[in-house]
Each structure stands twice: as C-alpha cells, then as structure tokens.
C-alpha cells in the first residue's frame, strides 16, 4: 500500500513537472473564439487594418501592370497626391474614400520610430525607391529578356517574372517588406506595446469600462484588436480565423499558414491565436501582466514566422542556383527572401525589446546577396545564399534544415 502510494506520488510529480501551468490562479475568462462583447454588443473592431491590407493588395497588383505610371503607384502608396491633395488611385471606392494610407503607417510604431524619424524616413524612402525603380527600370523593359545588368523577363517554371538588372523583382521585395515595415511593426511594436496600450488614461478607462466616444470598446481593447487585425483582418470569420488560415489575404495571414504547415513549426498559428485570445481576455479582466506575457508570445512567434519563411526562400534560391546551368529559376525565391530579410528589422525579440536583426545587420545580409558582385543574383553563389540563411536561423535558434524543407 505504501509502495503504491509512493508510486502514484512519484508519477504525479513527474507528470505535472512537464506541464506549463505556472499561472495557477487566474480569473481570466478566455472564450474559445475571438468574440468579446459589452452589454451585448461586440467590442472587436479593426476596420483600419482591413483597409490597409486592401490598399496593399491593390498596390502590389498594380506593380505588375506596366501601364501604371510612377505617379499612380505613388498615389496608391500615399493615398494622396504629391502635395497631399485628394486622389482616387484605387479600384475599390471605399479605399479611395478612406483617409488612411499605407505610407503613414510604414515604420511608424511608437516603440521603434517615435523618436527615430530619421530611420523612419529612410525606410519609407526604401519603399518609394522600389516603386520608382519598378516604373523606371522594369516597366520599360517589360517585353525584353532579362540579362546580367539588364532588366526584363525571367521564367520560374511556367511563370513569368520581371526583374531588374540584378535579377531582383521589385514587386516581391515591396510586398514582402510590407510584412515587416507595415504589419509587423504596427502589430508588435505599436499596438501590443504597453506604451500604446497604456497610453493616457487607457488603464483607468479600461478599469471603469469607459469606452471611446461613440464606440463599444475601451481604447486599450481597440489597440489590441488592431494588432489582431493585421493578421486576421480579412478572415472569412475573424472570430475563428484559423479555420480558413492562409486563404485570407496574401500578407501575414498567408505566411503564418505556410509556416504552420511545415511539420517542424506545426502549432505556430494556434500559439499565436491563443495568445491574442488570452491577452484580449486579460485586458477585459484587467490583468495587464498577463496581457504583456501574451504579447511577448506573439512577438516571439510572429517574428519567427518571418525568419522561417525567409530561410525557406533562401534555401529554395540556393538550390535553384546550384542545380541550374542557366540563372533565373531562383530569382523569384530570392526576391521573396530579400523582402523577408528586410522585414527582420521590424521583428521584436521579447527578451531584449529590440529587433532580432537591426537595420545595419539587415543591410549586411542583403549586401551579401546582391552586392558581392556587379550583377547581384546573376553571380551570387549558393554558399553565400546559405550563409545568410544560416545567420538567420542561428540567431532565431531554429535549424536551417527545419526551415528549408
């Protein structure tokens, strides 16, 4: 009898030791779907994020139409003319009517850029440079074959890609850099930041249930939801976004899904969603320490999505570069990788509060890809490409092979 009791005690000790339940006391009521209400009315809202994702999708598509002028593309980026005048560059009238724009939220987070206007301006100049170069370098050579030093067409299988003289697709760089420059930066470094969540009287208002004028939500609740909107703002059912994950938009949503589909990173999507859910419930319960713990989980895992995907595309590009006797087949993957690497400067390491790679480190990684020879991707070696991927996977602490396959 004694022996059996001891046995059970032993078993219980070891089994519980494996469980992650160091928050035994909690009064947080966590729902199963992202559904929160006050007096029967939903308090969840992220229209602004849905709008910006919509703008980004139209602009990315427009970068592949050589009939568009540089001015049209810039107007889409600013949702304004060169002197701030009202313009209607979008096909969707609701986007034209909006007073929001992509540009105003690029490199615009409180934590990273409120006291660094210099760097914010440099990032925006990068994006505008890609737009301008697409219009001025690539569009004029839309019906020409690309060659080292010459923009034009290359093929990836049955798909036509349009590259600059270095073999880079500006539209891919632009789109994948927006993942970091707009979406990640806004979500991780702005809306999930205590500096934003707790700004002004937010905590007191949240305690008393004082809502924003004319709205059902407190300001803190809304900020948290705005981060959520950059991931799930276009979901078929935003309350249960994992059901259609990957089908709802071409930005963060798609890449959370692709990383989640890699068995080495399975569960990533659920982890991120659960943290959003629990953090939002913690706000309702007034448990701000718990809120910030969940924000840390989101920061870590969403940052890793960018790194894993960047590593994956580098591996694809290295393989193509190695196995093909003619260059070109790997340019698309490497152009995507370029954007993911660019986005790393907007990631957030919860342990340090800083990006996993700062802007200068990102510049060096990109230089390895494109500046080791005059013609960029036309000459880069598989070893150089893999060295970049290795640096990224090492820094994040996952294996190159796990991300590459």
């Amino acid at each position, binding site marked *: 009898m004694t022996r059996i009791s001891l046995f059970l005690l032993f078993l219980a000790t070891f089994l519980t030791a494996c469980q992650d339940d160091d928050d035994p006391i909690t009064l947080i009521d966590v729902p199963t779907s992202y559904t929160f209400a006050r007096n029967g009315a939903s308090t969840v809202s992220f229209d602004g994020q849905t709008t910006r994702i919509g703008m980004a999708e139209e602009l990315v598509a427009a970068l592949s139409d050589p009939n568009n002028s540089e001015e049209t593309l810039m107007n889409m980026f600013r949702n304004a003319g060169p002197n701030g005048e009202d313009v209607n560059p979008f096909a969707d009238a609701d986007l034209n009517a909006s007073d929001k724009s992509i540009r105003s939220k690029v490199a615009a987070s409180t934590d990273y850029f409120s006291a660094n206007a210099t760097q914010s301006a440099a990032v925006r100049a990068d994006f505008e440079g890609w737009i301008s170069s697409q219009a001025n370098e690539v569009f004029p050579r839309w019906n020409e074959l690309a060659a080292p030093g010459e923009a034009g067409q290359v093929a990836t299988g049955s798909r036509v890609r349009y590259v600059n003289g270095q073999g880079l697709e500006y539209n891919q760089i632009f789109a994948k850099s927006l993942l970091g420059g707009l979406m990640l930066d806004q979500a991780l470094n702005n809306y999930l930041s205590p500096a934003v969540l707790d700004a002004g009287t937010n905590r007191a208002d949240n305690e008393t249930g004082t809502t924003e004028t004319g709205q059902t939500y407190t300001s803190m609740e809304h900020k948290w939801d705005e981060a959520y909107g950059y991931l799930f703002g276009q979901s078929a059912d935003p309350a249960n976004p994992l059901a259609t994950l990957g089908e709802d938009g*071409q930005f963060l949503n798609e890449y959370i899904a692709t990383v989640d589909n890699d068995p080495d990173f399975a569960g990533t999507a659920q982890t991120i969603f659960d943290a959003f859910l629990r953090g939002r419930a913690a706000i309702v319960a007034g448990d701000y320490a718990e809120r910030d713990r969940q924000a840390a989980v989101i920061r870590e895992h969403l940052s890793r999505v960018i790194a894993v995907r960047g590593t994956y595309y580098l591996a694809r590009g290295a393989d193509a570069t190695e196995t093909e006797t003619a260059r070109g087949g790997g340019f698309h993957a490497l152009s995507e990788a370029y954007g993911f690497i660019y986005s790393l400067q907007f990631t957030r390491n919860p342990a340090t509060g800083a990006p996993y790679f700062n802007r200068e480190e990102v510049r060096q990684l990109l230089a390895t890809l494109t500046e080791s020879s005059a013609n960029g991707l036309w000459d880069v070696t598989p070893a150089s490409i893999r060295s970049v991927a290795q640096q990224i996977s090492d820094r994040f602490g996952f294996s190159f092979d796990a991300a590459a396959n």
Partner: protein
Amino acid sequence: MYRLAVLLLPIIFWSCDPAPDDDATTTGESFDRGAMLAHWADDIVTPAFEDFRTAYADLSTAAGTYAAAPTGEALTELRASFTLAYREWQHFAPFAGVIGDEYRLVERLNTYPTNTDRLRTEPEANLQLPSNDDVQGFPALDYLLYGTDDPAEFSARISEIVDAVDLEAPYMAWRDGGRDRYVSNSGNSATASVDRTVNDLILYYEKQLRAGKVGIPAGVFSNGPMPTLAEAPYHAELARTLFLDGLAAIDEFFSSDPGLATYLDALSVEREGQRLSERIEAGFDLARARAEGLDADFATQVTTDNTALLQLYDALQANVILLKVDMLQALGINVDYVDADGD
C-alpha cells in the same frame, strides 16, 4: 523504492518528449542507385530524347519546305511530321527536367490552350520571351495547321515557331557531361538525381498528365467541362493518343528494371497485403483501359460523355496518392515542389 524509480524512468522521459521521432525511414542500403541511374539515363532518357530530336528535326524540315512552297502535298507532309513529333514529345516530356528545367522545354513546347487571338494579331511576338509561351509550341502549331481556314497564310510563322526551340544545346549539354553528372549524383539528398528525377516525374504525372490532359478539360477544377482547354483541340483526333503516349512513358519508366518498381520490391514495400509496385502498375493499367474507351478527341468527349473522362481522372488520382505519398515515404524522398503560392 529504488527499483520503482528505475521503472519510472522511461515513463518520465516518455511523458516529457514533445515530439516522438517517427521519421525513421529505410533507405535501401543494398539497392544500387547508381546502376538504376545509369539505366534510366542510357536506356530511357537518352533514347527518348534522341527519338524526339529526330522527329523534331523532321518537323523543322517539313515546316521549312512548306514555308518555301505551301502546296497541299507539303501541308500533308507537315501535318504528319507534326503528329509524329507531338507523339514523340509525350515520351520525352516527363524527363525534360532531367535534361534541365532551365531550357523550359515543357513550357515552350506544350503550353495550352494556345492564344489564338495573339497568334493572329502578333505575328512578330518574340518567341524567346517567357510571356509568349502561349503563342508557340505544339498547341500553336495545332491551331495554325488545323484551326485556320488557310494554313498557308501562316506558313512562315509555322516554320519560325518550330525553329524557335533549339534542341541542340540541351542535347549537347546532356551528351557532353550532363549524363555523367546525372549518373554519378547517386546520393539521397534533395538535390541527388534519384530524388529530383522522381519528383520531376510525379510533378509531370500530377500536373501535365492528370490535370492538364484530363482534369482541366473534364472540369474538375472549374464549374463544368471545358472543351477548349483540352490538348490538341484543333486536330480533333489526337488528344487520346497523346494521353496514352504520356501514360506509357511514365508506366514504362516505373516498371523498367532496375527502376522504381524493383526499388520498392527490394525494400519489400507493401500496402494492404499487396506489393506497392503491383498496386501502382494496376493503377496505370486501369487508367489505360479507361482511356482506351474514350473518343479520340477529349474536347469532344467532355461534351458527349464527360463522366467517362471523370472516371479516367479518378483512376489517375488514385495513383497520385500511391506515388506521391506511399512511394515517396518508402523511398525516403521529400516532395520538392509545392502548389504555386499564387504570387
């Protein structure tokens, strides 16, 4: 107590292990992959390439003759050469990736449906551009030779389209070093020849044979049958033949000894009490039997009795599972392609 603690150790470790390792795969140490690669290269890929190259050279000659003097006799000769070359292409196409994806032979020679409007309005289109894959190759020739009122009007363009694709450079590259590198790359990494050949083959089977020739015209991926998306719709008596040629190429490759069937048998791979190799071969046989009962023209078949084409699709799809999941798992090969990510 001491004994109990020892007893508990496995339980402790087991309960803490987040992801049990389950990817132990037999790699078939005893099977000679190098011999298989040499057989593939010398007895399958090279002859298929040479047969196609010869047929294509004949097509080029016939197109040149027709361009010089577009007589009825020359047209008859040209059409016969076209049919022969298109058929030989089916036997070589699954292995075009072995020769080199960078030559883009599959894309340039057989992108369909062809763009008939652009063929008429852009007679000067640069055929070297990837954006012009849909105004060249066999599908463009099919339209110009069989779909127009007077092919003679396009005789010069027909010849240009044929000659736009150069087979000599890839042939020389394969003969002078390509073949040897292929055979010597006999490891089992993602970039090794066996892994890449098998991936190319399954991709071809899935995308070209199953979807392109059958599933897409049968409306599997749309709201109804799409006769205009069938292969060789203007010839109107060729699609079934082309399909059967393509299926035969893959079947023969699979069953050829030493090949994938022998490799699977060497590893004693079975599914539901039967050798996997036999199940896959039975799948090819079933698809062949179903195809043989169809109209010679799949564009016609989908409008008269699409169910029969859907049944062919189902037979092909059943083997996709066996090839792509069961076979690859048994051989320890990873799928190296994914569905296009839409951007």
